């Protein structure tokens, strides 16, 4: 019963990148544990924000859900079907229902293809339109949907600004009429003024097409605006998941607290009173993470148990999960 409104259900997802040595005879020397045993789910129509610092495995998680990177272990259920078990051919068909918007709009558009060609790709691959004129109409419709003049159809990506390019990327993702879109830091490469436009566009499209988002970002204020729930990631592990407001006002995990304390406040009086938690040391290497809690090397609440046994995500009520011994 419960699984009915879960569009995406992720169970014990692991993505390890093997580190090999040698040219002909390769020896396995270890793994880069980019994503290490995380589980969460996303309901239909929901936006789940995924935050964390650079290199914590956010983007890898997003790509692993879409099977752009095949997970090492674990399951990704999309509408109850395990994507990790489908072969490439089946996956290609499934891609009609799930799309991705990449971080850097300068890198994610083929510089040799015009906008029309870029937008025809999903249409042709999934045979969405029957005739050429129908396809042209549809492309123009897509372009105006994301706020681009249809007259730009024959232009090339380098003729556009970052914000316009990101609109093209969004139009491409929308072309197949997906249900689920992974937004992989869709605004972090853009100007602040443009960021707001793109975020509003994403919000509008969500309510128009009942989209479900996994919104990956490192900017907490952006995530707060977009998300219904927020998941905090640190070094390949989820440390906390909670509803948007709950996390902002009652964060429990020390890492979430530190992360939240880094957000500047708009009100100067409040800003003066803001206490920053400055973490000491660096993020440990994901090739050799701490044995116990991943955060134990930098945590101010650390005790012996933290260093030995990794804490599990525990429900502390109202769908708020925290992985910490000291609450």
């Amino acid at each position: 019963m419960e699984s009915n409104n879960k569009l995406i259900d992720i169970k014990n997802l692991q993505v390890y990148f093997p580190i090999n040595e040698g040219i002909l005879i390769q020896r396995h020397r270890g793994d880069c544990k980019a994503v290490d045993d995380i589980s969460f789910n996303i309901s239909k129509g929901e936006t789940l924000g995924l935050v964390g610092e650079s290199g914590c495995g956010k983007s890898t998680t997003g790509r692993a859900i879409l099977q752009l990177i095949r997970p090492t272990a674990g399951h990704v259920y999309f509408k109850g079907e395990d994507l990790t078990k489908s072969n490439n051919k089946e996956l290609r068909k499934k891609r009609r229902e799930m799309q991705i918007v990449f971080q850097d709009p300068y890198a994610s558009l083929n510089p040799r293809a015009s906008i029309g060609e870029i937008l025809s790709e999903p249409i042709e691959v999934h045979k969405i339109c029957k005739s050429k004129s129908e396809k042209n109409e549809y492309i123009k419709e897509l372009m105006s949907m994301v706020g681009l003049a249809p007259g730009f159809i024959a232009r090339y990506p380098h003729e556009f600004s970052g914000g316009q390019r990101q609109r093209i990327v969004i139009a491409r993702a929308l072309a197949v009429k997906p249900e689920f879109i992974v937004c992989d830091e869709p605004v972090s490469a853009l100007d602040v003024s443009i960021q707001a436009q793109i975020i509003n566009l994403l919000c509008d499209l969500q309510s128009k097409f009942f989209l479900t988002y996994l919104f990956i970002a490192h900017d907490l204020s952006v995530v707060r605006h977009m998300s219904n729930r927020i998941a905090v990631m640190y070094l390949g592990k989820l440390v906390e998941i909670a509803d948007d407001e709950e996390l902002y006002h009652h964060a429990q995990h020390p890492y979430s607290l530190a992360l939240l304390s880094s957000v500047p406040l708009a009100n100067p009086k409040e800003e003066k009173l803001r206490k920053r938690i400055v973490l000491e040391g660096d993020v440990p290497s994901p090739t050799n993470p701490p044995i116990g809690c991943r955060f134990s090397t930098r945590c101010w609440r650390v005790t012996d148990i933290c260093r030995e046994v990794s804490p599990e995500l525990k429900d502390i009520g109202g769908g708020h999960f925290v992985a910490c011994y000291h609450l």
Partner: protein
Amino acid sequence: MNQSNEIVSEILEEKIIRLSVGRKIFNRALRNHTFLFGLLIIILFALLAAFPEYIAPHEPTTILSDSGIQPQSTKYPLGLDNLGRDVLSRVVYGARASFIVSFGSVTIALLIGVSLGLISGYVGGIVDIVICRILDAILAFPILLFAILTLALLGGSYTNLILTIGLIYMPYFARLARGSTLSIAKKEYVESSRAVGSSTWRIVTRTILPNIIVPITVQSSLALGVSMLIEANLSFLGLGVQPPTPSWGRMILESALYIRQNLLFMLTPGLCIFITILAYNLVGDGLRDILDPKLMD
């Protein structure tokens, strides 16, 4: 009012852009003098190769004088060769061998090399290792030694020359294509093609190939020069096009003993080789500029 203006300018813009995609390249080609100069020379030589019977004053194999070699005169502007044949006519007819062999071998090298490079670069893994070792093995042979070996065994004919030079040059295309593919395949737009659900074939032909075509085009025009030089070398060694079919390389070989009697017998084919190769290089350099999408504005 403002809005209608915008729409008008939009429509105008659309028309201009529509026209200009192919036209931009053409316009840029017209403005590129290096390219035009090179192209002009190549066209001139191509005309020689295509219609020598209308351009050459004599048949290339007709013996015009029993006394053999003659220096330049008003009757024979470049003189006669050691067998008494008109040097000018032989130079004109010699263009054909050079063109057939250079274009033929580059086409073969291009087709095989680029396909192998794309497969090797995009598929990776064991396929990549196997292909790369094969390429290394071919590259490890000294070019001329390899050509001498195969041509001595199979005999010098157009087909054998084209296949041999094509095979010799193929690894360079394969490596270039592989290297470019490797760098392009990591780009996000290739990943987004995958995310859209495109097949591997579509990704390789529609996304990767257009992005590596510029270095390959440039390389091909340079390769035309090199393969022509190899052909001339082989002909000089007596392994290329077999007599009496005229070939520039072979003419240099034949003229070596008669420099004192007729200097132009040696200089003209040499100059022809030099100028055509220069022209190929000019075209290659020009193409690199013309096809650069970042300079399209």
